[in-house]
């Protein structure tokens, strides 16, 4: 699968650069230094750096000569002085970095010298669209800004094609960088049941119930087992990459869809109520039924969802797969179209909406709230194996898993708090909010 459109050269793979890049404390450095000089006395500062740190020869650039700056900056044998700015990007050999910093501190004509950081402007993130939902309120919060910066780097680097250790979905949502596991958080998956003998899930099922007449909770379909795997598959699966988001969460299984994949609203309501009664903090529902453009959400589901929220349960549901992009975009299915249920759309590996993913055509709850990996998603299959499936059904359990991580990190948070954290933590994408809501799901 193709990577994102970003030029990977910017990410440290400079075969012609002996320095390479430097990673530290989650920040990526170029190996160069940005030096700010006292206005009017740039020469003293440069001379100090030349003599003490043996910096590369200096090319001077003025504003009107910008055309070849990029090329100059790429050259390891050239430092670039921006005369009008009184600033330089300085090339220095690794063993001279300490000397450069010491010299800069001692030299009165140098105001500051900092390692140059990697900053990425990618087609995914630039131009920065006006973020939706809660994001603006967090602009002054350093931690959140840092989080977004990390997310920006992840997004700019493009989705991983290497799934040796982690599925591309877990990498895209940064679950591979999170130390949270969802420990002690209960997640209910309302679906076709579960393969109770799957080696990756044995011992992980806290409770289960079937609301399908005449069928046990055992998954004769595969849909439920796949979704459960994505929500809470183990840290060390029997085979292949890790694919589960909340690897220590406690799993509640409500079977409301038959082995043939069908179920009624009544069975689903029963499963939801069972989950709430069992203390589920998250309900994941990879199910839905088509609605027409303009159709109102089902108010009975909305009432139930409101009451569940009051009891501390967040409900996420699949936006549905009825679209055929381009150009046909179908509205978010029910019950995901309820205002109190989070609707999840699906992204491809390129972090663009999957062709089948429904959009926010209808108002009043019919919006997409958040987007998550939903294409070629590997997870558990009945019989002890694995399979890759696509759909908003696969995107939804990623969100449920992240909610469990948030619940673990914030044990006293209300359901409303968790929803807000989820939405504000999403990474804004340039695609329309109609298709991706607040953006790409991100693990805390």
């Amino acid at each position: 699968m193709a990577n994102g459109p970003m030029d990977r050269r910017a990410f440290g793979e400079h075969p012609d650069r002996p320095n390479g890049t430097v990673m530290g404390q989650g920040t990526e450095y170029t190996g160069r230094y940005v030096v700010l000089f006292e206005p009017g006395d740039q020469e003293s500062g440069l001379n100090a750096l030349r003599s003490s740190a043996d910096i590369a020869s200096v090319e001077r650039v003025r504003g009107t000569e910008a055309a070849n700056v990029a090329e100059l900056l790429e050259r390891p044998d050239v430092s670039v002085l921006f005369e009008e700015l009184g600033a330089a990007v300085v090339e220095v050999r690794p063993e001279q970095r300490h000397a450069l910093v010491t010299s800069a501190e001692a030299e009165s004509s140098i105001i500051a010298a900092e390692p140059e950081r990697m900053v990425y402007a990618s087609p995914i993130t630039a131009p920065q669209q006006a973020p939706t939902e809660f994001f603006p309120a967090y602009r002054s919060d350093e931690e959140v800004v840092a989080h977004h910066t990390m997310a920006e780097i992840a997004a700019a680097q493009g989705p991983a094609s290497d799934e040796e250790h982690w599925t591309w979905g877990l990498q895209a949502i940064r679950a591979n960088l999170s130390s949270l596991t969802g420990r002690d958080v209960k997640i209910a998956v309302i679906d076709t049941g579960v393969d109770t003998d799957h080696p990756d899930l044995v011992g992980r099922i806290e409770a289960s119930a079937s609301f399908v007449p005449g069928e046990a909770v055992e998954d004769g379909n595969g849909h439920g087992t796949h979704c459960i795997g994505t929500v809470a598959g183990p840290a060390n699966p029997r085979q292949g990459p890790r694919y589960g988001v909340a690897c220590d969460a406690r799993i509640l299984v409500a079977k409301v869809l038959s082995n043939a994949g069908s179920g009624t609203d009544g069975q689903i309501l029963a499963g939801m109520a069972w989950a709430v009664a069992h203390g589920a903090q998250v309900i994941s529902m990879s199910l839905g039924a088509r609605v027409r453009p303009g159709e109102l959400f089902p108010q009975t589901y909305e009432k139930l969802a409101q009451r569940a929220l009051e009891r501390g349960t967040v409900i996420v549901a699949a936006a549905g797969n009825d679209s055929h992009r381009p150009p046909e975009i179908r509205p978010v299915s029910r019950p995901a179209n309820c205002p109190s249920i989070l609707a999840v759309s699906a992204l491809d590996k390129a972090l663009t909406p999957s062709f089948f993913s429904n959009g926010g055509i209808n108002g009043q709850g019919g919006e997409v709230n958040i987007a998550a990996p939903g294409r070629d998603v590997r997870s558990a299959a009945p019989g002890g194996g694995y399979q890759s499936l696509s759909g908003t059904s696969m995107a939804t359990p990623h969100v449920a898993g992240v909610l469990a991580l948030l619940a673990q990190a914030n044990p006293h948070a209300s359901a409303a708090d968790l929803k807000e954290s989820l939405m504000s933590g999403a990474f804004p994408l340039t695609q329309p909010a109609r298709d991706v809501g607040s953006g790409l799901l991100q693990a805390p």
Partner: protein
Amino acid sequence: MSESAQPAPVGIILAVDPDRFAEVVEALRRAGLTVTGEQPALGTLSGSVAEDRIPTLETIDGVESLDRERTLQLPPPDSPIQ
């Protein structure tokens, strides 16, 4: 199908006032609802009723919503899109 003139029952789901759940459900039964499932803690229930009785059910005090029940169907398990 039934030979009577009665319309075939249709499935519905309802939300009612959870604080007087039993009382409202009893009124719904008297108005013709056959209850197939109930969730008292969250104040919802499902059932079937003759279609022409639906307007009557909607007017019962304590009934907050009434939706026609639908059946959801997943794609076949071998479909690449789920």
